[in-house]
C-alpha cells in the first residue's frame, strides 16, 4: 500500500510539473518578451493560454503537499524544517505570481499593469528555481531524518542549484512547446516561429543542465548516479529521446503530438528520480515509504481519495481543457 501511495505522490508531482510547470514557464516567457510594444503579441498568447487553467493546475501542488504530509509525515516534517528557507521563498513566489497575474487582468493603467506583470513574471522564475533546489537537496541526501534546524548548505550544493536551474529551463521548455501548438491552432505563424525558437533554446538549456547535473552527481554522489544509470536507465534514455524528438520535430515544423512527447520527457526525468531513490524517501537516512509515520488505514484512505480524484477530477479537467482548446473560454472575440 505504501508503494501505491508513493506512486500516487510521484504521479501528482509529475502532473504538477507538466501542467503547473508550464504556467510558470509562461511567466518566464512573459518576463523575456521585451518592451511593451514588442512583447504585446507573445504576452497576449501567454495570457490567454494560462488564464482559465492556472488555478486548477495549481491545485496539484496542494494535492501533492497533502499526500506527502499524510502518508509520510516524518519525512515531511524534516523537509519542511531543513529546507524552510527555499520553501518560504517559493511560497512568496506563488503568492506574487497568482496575485500579480490576477491583478494584471483587471488593471487598465499601463504603469500599474507593468508592476503587476513584473510581479507575475519575476516570481514565475523564482518559484520553480527554489522548488528545484528543494528537490535537488532531497535527492542528494541533504535532509536528515530528524531535522531540527534549517540548513543553508543543504540546498546550495552544486547539484541542488543545478536542479533549480533545470526546473526553470524545463518550465520554459514545456511552456514554449505548448505555445507553439497553441499559436499553430490559431494560425498565428509569427508566434509559432517565435515560440519554436524559444522551445528549441529551452530544450538545449534543459538538456545541457540535465547532463551537467548527471556529471555533478557522478562525482558528488556515486551511489545515486549508479542507480540513475542502473535501474532508472530506461527512463533516463526515454527522457533524452523525447527531448531529441521534440527538437527534431520543431526543426521540421511538425507539431502533431509534440506536447505529449515534451511532457513525457519531463515525466521520465521525475520518474527516474523516483525509481533511483526507491524505496528511500530521504536518501542517506533510514526513512522509507513504509516507516515514515503513517498507518495502513491512512494509506488505504489516500488510495480511495486518489481513485475518487480519477473519477471526479480527471473528467472535469478533460472538460476544462476541451473547452479551452475550442476557445470557448476567455474574453477575446
Amino acid at each position, binding site marked *: 500500500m505504501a508503494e501505491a501511495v508513493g506512486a500516487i505522490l510521484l504521479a501528482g508531482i509529475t502532473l504538477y510539473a507538466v501542467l503547473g510547470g508550464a504556467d510558470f514557464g509562461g511567466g518566464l516567457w512573459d518576463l523575456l518578451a521585451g518592451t511593451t510594444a514588442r512583447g504585446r503579441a507573445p504576452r497576449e498568447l501567454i495570457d490567454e493560454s494560462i*488564464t*482559465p487553467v492556472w*488555478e*486548477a493546475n*495549481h*491545485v496539484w501542488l*496542494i*494535492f501533492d*503537499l*497533502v*499526500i506527502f*504530509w*499524510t*502518508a509520510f*509525515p*516524518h519525512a*515531511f*516534517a524534516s*523537509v*519542511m*524544517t531543513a529546507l*524552510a528557507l527555499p*520553501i*518560504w521563498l517559493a*511560497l*512568496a513566489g*506563488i*503568492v506574487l*505570481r*497568482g*496575485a500579480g497575474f*490576477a*491583478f494584471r*487582468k*483587471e*488593471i*487598465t493603467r499601463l504603469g500599474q499593469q507593468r508592476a503587476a506583470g513584473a510581479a507575475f513574471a519575476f516570481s514565475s522564475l523564482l518559484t520553480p528555481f527554489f522548488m528545484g533546489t528543494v528537490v535537488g537537496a532531497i535527492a542528494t541526501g541533504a535532509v536528515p531524518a530528524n531535522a*531540527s*534546524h*534549517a540548513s543553508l548548505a543543504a540546498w546550495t550544493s552544486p547539484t541542488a542549484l543545478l536542479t533549480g536551474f533545470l526546473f526553470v529551463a524545463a518550465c520554459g521548455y514545456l511552456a514554449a512547446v505548448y505555445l507553439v501548438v497553441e499559436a499553430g491552432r490559431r494560425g498565428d505563424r509569427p508566434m509559432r516561429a517565435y515560440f519554436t525558437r524559444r522551445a528549441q533554446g529551452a530544450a538545449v538549456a534543459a538538456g545541457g543542465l540535465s547532463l551537467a547535473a548527471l556529471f555533478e552527481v557522478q562525482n558528488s554522489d556515486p551511489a545515486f548516479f549508479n542507480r540513475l544509470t542502473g535501474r532508472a536507465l530506461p527512463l533516463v534514455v526515454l527522457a533524452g529521446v523525447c527531448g531529441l524528438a521534440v527538437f527534431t520535430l520543431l526543426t521540421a515544423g511538425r507539431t502533431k503530438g509534440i506536447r505529449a512527447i515534451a511532457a513525457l520527457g519531463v515525466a521520465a526525468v521525475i520518474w527516474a528520480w523516483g525509481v533511483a531513490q526507491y524505496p528511500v524517501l530521504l536518501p542517506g537516512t533510514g526513512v522509507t515509504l513504509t516507516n515514515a*509515520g*503513517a*498507518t495502513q*488505514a*491512512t494509506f488505504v*484512505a*489516500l488510495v480511495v*481519495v486518489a481513485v475518487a*480524484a480519477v473519477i*471526479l*477530477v480527471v473528467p*472535469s479537467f478533460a*472538460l*476544462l481543457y476541451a*473547452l*479551452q482548446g475550442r*476557445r*470557448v*473560454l476567455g*474574453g477575446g472575440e
Partner: protein
Amino acid sequence: MRASGMVLLAAAQGGTQVVPARAQMAATLGFHIILACFGIALPSIVLLAEFIGLRRHNETALLLARRWSQAMGVLIAVGAVTGTVLSFELGLLWPGLMRQYGSVLGVPFGVEGLFFFLEAIFAGIYLWGWRRLPGWAHWWSGVPIAVSGIFGAMAVIAVNSWMNTPGGFTEVDGQITSVNVWQVFFSRSAIYEMPHMILAAYMVAGFGVASVYAVGILRGRRDRYHYTGFALGFVPAAVLTPFQIFVGDTAARAIAHDQPVKFAAMEYVARTSRQVPEWLGGAYVNGHIYAGIKIPYMDSLLVGFGPGTKVIGWDSVPPADRPPVVWLIHLAFDVMVGLGSLLLLVGLWAAWTWWRRRRWPRPRVFWALGAVSGLAAVVAMECGWVVTEEGRQPWVVYGLQTTAQAATTNGGILTSLSIVVVGYGVLGAATIAILLMLSRRWRRDDRDDASVPYGPPRAGVDRPASHVES
C-alpha cells in the same frame, strides 16, 4: 492589520518560536478566512443572481451576476494563493504537529483537495465562459463551484474540529497505530463547527455584497440596479442569520461538555459551581471582573435550562493547562454574539417592513446598518475564530499536544512574520483597490450605456468610423 491585536497578545504570553509562529498563523488565517468565506458562499449568490436573470429575463440581475463573477475571479485567485500559504505553514510553522498527527488530520485535507480541484476547474469554466457558453449551460457550470465550496469547507473544518475534540485513532508509545477515517472526519465537534462556519461564510458574503449596494443607496443611487444588488446579498444572509444563532447556541452548550475549559474562559467561570451568572462584557484581571454586566443564574440557565446546573470552571485543570488570556476569549465571544444579534435585528426590521408595506424600510439608519453589515459579519466571524483558537490553548490538539510542542525549532520566524504582515497588508490593500476600481469602471460604463442615441459625440467614446476598424 486586523490580526495585530492577536499578535501583541500572543507576544505577551512568552515562549520562543511559538509566539511569532502563532502570530503568523493568526495573521495569515485571519486574512485568508475572509477570502475563504467569499470562495465558499459568493458562487451561490452569483448563481442566484444569474438564475433570476435567466428565469425572469431580468437584465439587471444578469448584469450583476456577470460583474460579481469578475470580482469573484479576483477573490478566488487571492484566496487560492493565501490558502496555499496556510497549507505550507502547517509544515513550516508546526512540524511537530504534522510529524505526530499528519497521518490522522491529513485525510480530511485529502478530501478537501478533491473539492478544491473541482472548485478551481469549474471556476475556470464559469468565470471565463460568460461570453460563449449558452445561458443555462453556463449556469450549470457554476453549480459544482458552489457545491464543492460547501464540501471543501466541511473537510477543512473537520480538521479544526478534530483538533478541538480529537479521536478516531490509537496512539501507542507516541506512535499512531490505527486510524478510523470516519471518526476523524466527523469528530464530536464537527457536528456543530461545520454548519457554524458554513453559515458564517454565507453571512459574510451575503452581508458583504449587500453592504456595497447599501453604500450606493445611501449616496443617492436609488435605482433598480442597487436595490437588486442589495436584495440578492441581504436576503439570503438575513434568512440564514436565525439558523446561525440557533447553531451557535447549540455549539456553546456542546462546548460546555466537550471543552469545558474553553467554555469557562468564554463565560468567565473561574470555579466549578452551580447558579453561575452570565457576564456581559467586562475585563478579567487578577480574579476580578471590571465593568461587566452580571446576570444572575443566566449562565447555568443557558447551559442546562435550570439555575442549578453545574458549570465546570477553569479551576478544574492546573494553571498551566488553562488558556493564557481569558478576557480576550470572553470579549471576542461577546462581540460575536452581540454582532450576530444585531444582524438578526436588521433582518427582522426588513422582514417586518416587507410584511406590512411590501417595500424596503425607508429610514437612513436601516441603510447605514446595511452598509456596515458586511464588516459586522466579518468581525463576528473573526471573533469566533479567536474564541475557538485562543480557547483551545495551550493545546494544539486538545489534551494531547501543546502548541509549544508543535512549533518549529527553526529561528527567524519573527522575520517571516514581519514580511507576512507587510506583504499581506499590501495584498489586502491591492485587492480592495482593484475591487473599487472595478466598481468605478462599471459606473462609468452605466453612464455610457445611458447616453442618448442622437446626442453629441463624447470625446474618447465616439470615434470616426474610419478608425474603428484599425
